[in-house]
């Protein structure tokens, strides 16, 4: 950005940020829970757009599927259990949190003054480790998408941890909400079936397509934006759509509650298992270079993919593939479990659970 | 394991073993009490053996554990500690005899817990007596506090619990807030807390640090009941008489003054103490305590309260004497510790015997009782004279030595306080015995026995033995003084490592 000229990118940034601020205030102001949830969804979408403008495609993708998509669905499921309107809050109760927010905001603004300029190639973030990633990824890993390489290989242990966090959330929701009586999900039974023909037909067409798209995102992660997290959410959305249109009972018959929990655990097992296999083959934990024992490695033609001078590319390639599968399993199963946790619960079933 | 180590193990192990066995055989009172007596005798033998070996110049030593470097649980007998051990173990025996009579006579509840806590308290006393450093002493000092808490609250009444709370809070509070920081301060200054002949801190501290440490340690040993930390002692008189007798004439309070004596002799050393301004301040506080406590004792009608206040004053003698090591202050303090213990335990046991026999606990209720209980009141008279310090009672010697030391050090006020307090003691103790033995004409007739047969004979025997001890020690005073002499013999830096 040279001189006082305002380019289109800058204008877009400002517009999106202003939009984010406006939505944030609106979320705080509104007392309708439904409106708040929908506006948060819009907030996520806007920030996804903003991240896209900032060239963070992977993050934008995640924000879009998780923030705007999955969490909105789950929150919508949750407000079925609450009254539609939040109570008016006494302004005195807002003083302390408000003051805290002001202080934190002030510190953030203060600190921003010490940050390097956006996009500065000489900034520490771009010159030290970040630069090394850009320079070495192709040689080390052989994957074109540096983001995927960093997430799945260089810092694959973090990603394992994040997968475990999601698994922990799955366990948490299942512990809190996963038991007790259920009503079948209401809409399809209340309204005569024929009115839903269009929905059903479209859903039947859409669900396989969504699942297919999930798989595309999954396996395309090496090359472009995407990976197990995003794919997992999309896959879960396909299942949730099924439940919304065909009823919870039908979905639970296809994907039982226990199966969902087991798959969530299985995802972590797959991920950590890859690491353990690497140990067994003589490497460190998650050192994909040792994913295959030398005997198997010898059977793979060295120049099949990527730079033939690097002997372990197959290990890196398959390592990332396998752990992304693990992520997919855990994420999709967790979101389905969360949906199950809220869906089908009504105030009556909760009351029944309390008595039982 | 050599003989010395074995003796120390026995001295500590016997009471603990006794506590365990008492718990196990609690349902059989005869076995339980026989066992207590046997243990008492055994412990007394062990203590005397240690006493003798120290006299022969072969002090027993034992190193138990070193939790972290520089901090060890270790034992080493020396004259003062050996004397304390002998005194406590022998008087435990006498007192156990008395307790058996008292507790059975009163049909008290929870007797097993009573004897068990007693034994654990003796374990604490032995540990204090034989401790080789301040840390070990502190450990057993706390054992003693907590083991005696159930004894103080034995009655279980709200009053007993209130008294127990004051007892516990004062002692623990002082030891955590003052004694422990003092000990840690010593550790920080000297790198160790060992008792060293001639004084660990000698030559290592200036007057300010030394004074602060001395104040922390002396006031921290709240069991010595130096004012203003004396409140727990009258409060603890809610305990049954045998408890008061042993714990508040012998074990607990003497553990306090023993700590002060040890600190004076081995942590600071005679020379350093004399040079510290804080020692003089403590002397003044001691003199004030002596006089005030004696005056308060005069006003008390409850006999145990009167004795308790008397104890407060007498303890201040010893604390003050420990601050007077110019000449023979330490020896005088050590002797008085023993002599006062014997006399005071006799007095408390008399009070207990009277209470069992007649239910009387007030001085005003005891007129003419001497005719019914001649032995007990004669013993009371003898022991009372022992507190006052008239010949042929042992305490005469210790008071004499203290006087000499006070004059030598030029502490006239303290000397005056000694004289005044002796006179006051005559006034608050002797009339009790006189009015009981020789009631004036026209007095109301004496109370009747509430227990058929009067005081249990076990108790009477114990009372008489203790009173006889006061007289016997009169003749042993010289030997004891010689025995204690080494604690002040080493001077100027010799002992410092």
């Amino acid at each position, binding site marked *: 950005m040279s001189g006082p000229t305002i380019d289109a990118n800058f204008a877009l940034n400002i517009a999106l940020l202003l939009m984010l601020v406006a939505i944030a205030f609106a979320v705080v102001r509104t007392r309708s829970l439904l409106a708040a949830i929908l506006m948060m969804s819009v907030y996520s979408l806007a920030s996804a757009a903003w991240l896209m403008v900032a060239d963070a495609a992977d993050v934008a993708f995640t924000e879009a599927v998780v923030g705007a998509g999955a969490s909105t669905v789950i929150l919508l499921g949750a407000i079925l259990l609450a009254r539609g309107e939040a109570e008016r809050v006494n302004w005195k109760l807002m003083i302390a949190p408000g003051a805290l927010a002001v202080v934190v905001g002030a510190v953030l603004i203060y600190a921003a003054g010490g940050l390097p300029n956006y996009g500065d190639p000489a900034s520490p973030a771009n010159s030290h480790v970040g630069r090394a990633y850009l320079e070495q990824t192709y040689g080390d890993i052989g994957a074109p998408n540096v983001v995927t390489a960093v997430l799945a290989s260089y810092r694959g242990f973090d990603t394992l941890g994040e997968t*475990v966090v999601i698994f922990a959330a799955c366990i948490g929701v299942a512990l809190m909400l996963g038991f007790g009586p259920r009503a079948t999900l209401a809409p399809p039974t209340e309204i005569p079936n024929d009115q839903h023909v269009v929905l059903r037909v479209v859903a039947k067409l859409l669900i396989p397509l969504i699942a297919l798209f999930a798989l595309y995102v999954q396996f395309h992660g090496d090359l472009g934006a995407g990976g197990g997290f995003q794919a997992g959410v999309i896959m879960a959305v396909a299942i949730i759509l099924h439940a919304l249109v065909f009823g919870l009972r039908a979905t639970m018959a296809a994907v039982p509650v226990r199966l969902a929990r087991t798959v969530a655990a299985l995802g972590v097992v797959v991920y950590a298992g890859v690491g353990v296999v690497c140990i067994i083959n003589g490497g460190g934990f998650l050192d994909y270079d040792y994913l295959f024992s030398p005997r198997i490695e010898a059977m793979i033609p060295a120049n099949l993919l990527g730079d033939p001078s690097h002997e372990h590319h197959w290990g890196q390639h398959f390592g990332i593939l396998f752990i992304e599968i693990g992520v997919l399993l855990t994420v999709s199963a967790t979101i389905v479990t969360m949906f199950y946790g809220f869906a089908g619960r009504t105030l009556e079933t909760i009351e029944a659970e309390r008595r039982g | 394991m050599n003989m010395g180590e074995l003796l120390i193990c026995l001295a500590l192990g016997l009471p603990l073993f006794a506590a365990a066995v008492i718990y196990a055989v609690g349902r059989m009172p005869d076995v339980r009490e026989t066992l207590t007596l046997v243990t008492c005798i055994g412990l007394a033998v062990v203590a005397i053996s240690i006493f003798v070996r120290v006299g022969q110049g072969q002090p027993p030593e034992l190193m138990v554990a070193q939790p972290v470097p520089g*901090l060890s649980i270790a034992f080493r007998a020396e004259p003062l500690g050996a004397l304390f051990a002998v005194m406590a173990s022998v008087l435990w025996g006498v007192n156990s005899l008395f307790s058996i009579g008292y507790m059975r006579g009163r049909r008290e509840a929870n007797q097993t817990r009573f004897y068990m806590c007693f034994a654990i308290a003796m374990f604490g006393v032995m540990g204090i007596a034989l401790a080789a450093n301040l840390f070990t002493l502190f450990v057993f000092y706390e054992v003693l506090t907590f083991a005696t808490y159930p004894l103080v609250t034995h009655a279980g009444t709200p009053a007993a619990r209130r008294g127990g709370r004051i007892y516990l809070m004062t002692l623990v509070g002082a030891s*955590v*807030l003052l004694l422990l920081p003092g000990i840690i301060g010593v550790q920080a200054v000297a790198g160790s807390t060992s008792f060293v002949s001639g004084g660990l801190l000698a030559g290592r501290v200036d007057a300010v640090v030394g004074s602060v440490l001395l104040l922390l340690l002396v006031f921290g040993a709240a069991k010595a009941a130096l004012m203003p930390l004396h409140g727990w002692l009258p409060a603890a008189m809610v305990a049954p008489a045998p408890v008061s007798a042993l714990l508040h004439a012998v074990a607990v309070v003497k553990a306090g003054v023993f700590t002060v004596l040890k600190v004076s002799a081995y942590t600071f050393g005679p020379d350093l103490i004399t040079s510290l301004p804080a020692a003089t301040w403590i002397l003044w506080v001691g003199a004030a305590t002596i006089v005030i406590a004696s005056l308060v004792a005069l006003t008390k009608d409850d006999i145990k309260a009167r004795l308790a206040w008397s104890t407060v004053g007498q303890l201040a003698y010893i604390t003050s004497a420990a601050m007077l090591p110019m000449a023979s202050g330490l020896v005088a303090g050590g002797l008085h510790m023993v002599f006062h213990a014997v006399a005071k335990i006799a007095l408390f046991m008399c009070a207990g015997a009277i209470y069992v026999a007649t239910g009387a606990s007030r001085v005003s209720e005891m007129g003419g009782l001497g005719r019914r209980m001649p032995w007990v009141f004669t013993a009371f008279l003898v022991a009372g004279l022992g507190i006052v310090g008239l010949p042929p009672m042992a305490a005469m010697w210790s008071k004499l030595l203290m006087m000499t030391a006070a004059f030598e050090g030029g502490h006239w006020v303290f000397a005056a306080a000694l004289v005044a307090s002796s006179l006051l003691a005559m006034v608050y103790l002797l009339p009790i015995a006189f009015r009981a033995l020789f009631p004036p004409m026209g007095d109301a007739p004496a109370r009747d026995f509430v227990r058929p047969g009067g005081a249990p004979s076990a108790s009477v025997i114990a009372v008489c033995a203790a009173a006889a001890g006061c007289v016997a020690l009169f003749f042993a005073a010289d030997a004891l003084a010689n025995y204690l002499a080494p604690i002040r013999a080493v001077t100027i830096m010799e002992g410092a490592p």
Partner: protein
Amino acid sequence: MIVLETLYVATPALTAQAPILAIVIPLLGACAAAMAPSARAAWMISVAAAVFGAWMALAVAGEAMREGVLVYVLGGFDPPMGIALRIDAMGALMGLLIGSVGTLAAVFSGHSLVAEVRPEKHTLFQAGFLLCQAGLTGLVFTGDAFNAFVFLEVSSIGTYALVAVGERRDRRALPAAFNYLIMGTVGATFYVIGVGFLYAATGTLNMVDMAARLATLDQSMAVQAGFAFILAGLGVKAAMFPLHGWLPGAYAGGPSLISVLLAATATKAAIYLMVRFMFEVFPQGAAFGEAFLTWVLAPLAATGAIVCSLQAVFARELRRMIAFSSVAQVGFIFLGVSLANADGLSASLFYMVAHGLMKATMFMALGALALSIGARRLDDFAGVAREAPWTAVAFAIGAASLVGTPLTMGFLAKWGLIEAAIASGKVWIAVVIAAGSVLTVIYVGRMIEAMFFRPPLPGAPRAKEAPIGVLAPLLVLAGLSIWFGFDASLIEQLSQAGAARLFEVRP
């Protein structure tokens, strides 16, 4: 190190992988427990995984003592490109604490869950418990600032729900868990914001690399803000006064098993991470430095120690008393840290272990009592020593250690802290610790008096002695407090070595 070597036997190959196995085995155990067919199977998996984790932690401790610092590279990429576990004596000590308490808690869970948690939830509960253990171990072993955040979340997320499950015993567990969730999430967010600033300023996430780069940097506003955010965020997790609001409810409301684990390890791990940031990542004098320690940390810690001790004195419910006591003890630990020297830090580390063991003992004893009586108020515990003597004695040992009774570990801990304070010339800190100890005596005295010296309330449910499966781990825990009161060389060496390394003073 004789003790370590006699306790620990393993092949060299296993030893080489011990740091990661100590994390991954509980993790895999959690997955297995979630898939387990029955509650009993889940329990057995839980015990096996916890034992294995503790064994590996032992191996790590031995290696860390031998080598000084143990580095385990993950993914084959050397830091700062990749992530590495980095364990010194301090981390090894925390790992040992987490492993050993976790193992005993796992054994204890067999009976405890039956009484407090609905049967169909057992498998998931065990999974959450193991996740928590894996997360805490990872938190203390990792050498990467962001990885620490991930493990902080692993240990926290499951815990929120585990606390809420306590609603079966005490309905107030639900709001307590919600409170904990909100405050914990705010804390974690602060932490990650702080790490973000540091990354922007240094371009690295590896703590050692970060320290090296910070040492050459001017103190920019971003670095200062990063430091503040990290400390505030971890302060919430560590229950540092006045950020402790979540703790009493969470400890008091959660199922006994979770109280045991949380009280013994969770706050300690956060304090450990704070110490790493204060003295390792930020070179001394940087980002507020001494001024922060003297004028912010120490006064807050002292206030917390006194105020929360008073709250414990006046609390009516036993669990809340112990929980408030925990906040107060955190204050003691921070007082030692604020001395900013090897002695103070070593004393604080020692105190952390001592406090972890004693609080675990006390909560486990309450859990053992909860098998038979659902008492909450202190008065309801009157006279339980008669019905459940062993449990009561174990509780009393934990309480004695809390007070700082000689010959328990708590005494040595207090001794070390006071000595360090005096040696540093900060007498007022010694005074605060002594005053706090007196308050401790008061509330512990109330507990002991009720349990041992008061007759049971008429008509109250009678306590029963716990079965051997509960008594065994309980007595082992209590025994540890006593054992280390006599011979603390193991803990002492580890904490001194850990503290000395941070301050670059060789022991």
